[in-house]
């Protein structure tokens, strides 16, 4: 078995030094073993474990009495879950759209031979180095109606200025969008700026010689060539959106009531504080489904694209 698996280089070694072969041959596998174990147990094993739990009636402790799809049925009849899902829809789409818009705009603007580009880039990207908990704490202070931006504007003379989204159950989700965009849009900028710098300079020169304006060059030539960057950004942003948990905890704690819960917060609350392990697991599986729905087509097209290039 083992010899079959070795490649031609090690066969050469075999001819020269047969005694050394077996250990040298096994070494890579031995070295990789701990990580393999981790992947099999802690990623795939746990995933299956959670999937199993989602089909049981587990409450405070895991039990293995199977109840079929009951937990999923309860989940989708649960008002709080539906609020969390709706919030994810609103939060996710606005967050992604605004981040993409701002990120692409900033990247193109910075690409115009700007003075102090380095400093500006540093400023746009630094929120990405901060934890969502700190971001949430900062924006909680900025957005609170009694002392925050609302008061600032009123004191500046705009007496009827109203900005109390943080305490408005119907608007609080937009507060999450503002804080998350603040944190992540610089990242999109960095991705696109790297992409723009990689575009073939001759292509741009040729377009200019043909009399294309800067705007047309970007719209017709440069941006279309950045399609892969666009899709990476899209996938990463949706990934951030679906996994969002910390920001809600710090900024709104799910409130007012549970009007700003996201699925991750629902999962945490039901599993760890409400002793509804079965339903918590079901919600985790739905989250996994969302991520896979985005990731699998993306990875598939990436892999296929790679093969075509070869």
């Amino acid at each position: 078995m083992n010899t079959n698996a070795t490649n031609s280089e090690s066969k050469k070694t075999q001819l020269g030094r047969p005694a050394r072969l077996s250990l040298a041959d096994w070494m890579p596998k031995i070295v990789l073993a701990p990580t393999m174990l981790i992947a099999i147990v802690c990623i795939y094993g746990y995933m299956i474990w959670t999937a199993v739990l989602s089909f049981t009636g587990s409450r405070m402790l895991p039990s293995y009495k199977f109840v079929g799809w009951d937990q999923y049925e309860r989940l989708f009849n649960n008002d709080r879950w539906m609020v969390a899902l709706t919030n994810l829809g609103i939060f996710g789409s606005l967050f992604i759209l605004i981040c993409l818009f701002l990120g692409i705009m900033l990247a193109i603007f910075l690409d115009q031979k700007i003075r102090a580009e380095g400093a500006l880039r540093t400023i746009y990207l630094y929120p990405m180095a901060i934890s969502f908990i700190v971001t949430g704490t900062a924006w909680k202070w900025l957005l609170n109606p009694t002392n925050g931006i609302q008061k600032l504007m009123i004191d500046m003379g705009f007496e009827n200025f109203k900005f109390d989204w943080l305490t408005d159950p119907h608007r609080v989700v937009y507060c999450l969008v503002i804080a998350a965009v603040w944190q992540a849009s610089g990242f999109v900028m960095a991705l696109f700026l790297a992409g723009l710098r990689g575009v073939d300079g001759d292509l741009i020169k040729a377009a200019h010689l043909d009399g294309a304006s800067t705007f047309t060059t970007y719209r017709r030539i440069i941006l279309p060539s950045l399609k892969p960057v666009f899709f990476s950004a899209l996938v990463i942003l949706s990934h951030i959106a679906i996994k969002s948990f910390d920001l809600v905890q710090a900024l709104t704690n799910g409130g007012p009531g549970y009007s700003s819960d996201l699925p991750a917060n629902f999962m945490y609350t039901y599993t760890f504080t409400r002793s509804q392990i079965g339903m918590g697991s079901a919600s985790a599986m739905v989250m996994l489904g969302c991520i896979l729905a985005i990731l699998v087509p993306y990875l598939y097209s990436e892999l296929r694209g790679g093969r075509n290039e070869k």
Partner: protein
Amino acid sequence: MKNNAIARKTSGVEKVLRLALYAVLLIMAFFYLMPLVIMLITSLKDAEEVRNGTLLSLPSYLHFDSWTKAWSGACTGSTCTGISPYFINSFKIVIPAVAISTLLGAINGYVISLWKFRGSDLFFAALLLGCFIPFQVVLLPMAQTLGWLGIASSTTGLVFVHVVYGVAFTTLFFRNFYQSIPGELVKAARLDGAGFFTIFYRIILPVSTPIIVVTVIWQFTQIWNDFLFGVAFSGFDSQPVTVALNNLVNTSFGGKEYNVDMAAAIIAALPTIIVYVFAGKYFVRGLTAGAVKG
């Protein structure tokens, strides 16, 4: 003449456009900087000024009381030790977790790109998925496992968790980096009788400095900023600083003290901000490396 006039006109338009461009860029810079500036201003005010002033009103003089309180006196939940013990906890978690996951990632990447065996590519693909699963699907089983291992609610447990779920990323980084090393190098070394570890130690590691820096910075930022694992798996005295900060901010003991909250938030963010300021280039490289092959 006519040509000249057109040229002058376009340059005029261009000037206006360029001004607008700078204006937009500066306004955006203001948007990104404002929260940090306001945090800083607020943390330097006393309670009176916080209540009566606005976000942008400056403190009458610099009060560092809220910083002292945030560090060593503020109440998080039921204890009033400030966030300093938790700040130290974070280091106790981050340092071993970063070291172990980076080392594992380096050696995994070395195997996967230079010692390929049947199934190693498949394994890498399978591991890659580990970068992307929502950690909610592993929370409960991991909580049980930590209990069985006897490391629940300890910093050791958190180190373990961060290594387990960090190694997929570190392997990805090193694998992508080592892909560019020619296989002939390893082949030649093997013919000269160098073994698996000798090649790694003498040939591969010396050229790995850039990717080690990128990985260490990436892992440091990720683990320092983690909240989910911290809140799910830490005990009372093993909380990382993010969890303590959240508790501090949400403790309604004796009225809100926004200046203390802000000081605590800045302290909690300081290590990663410092890393970013001094090694931003590598941080960005980590971000985009994760993205490009994501």
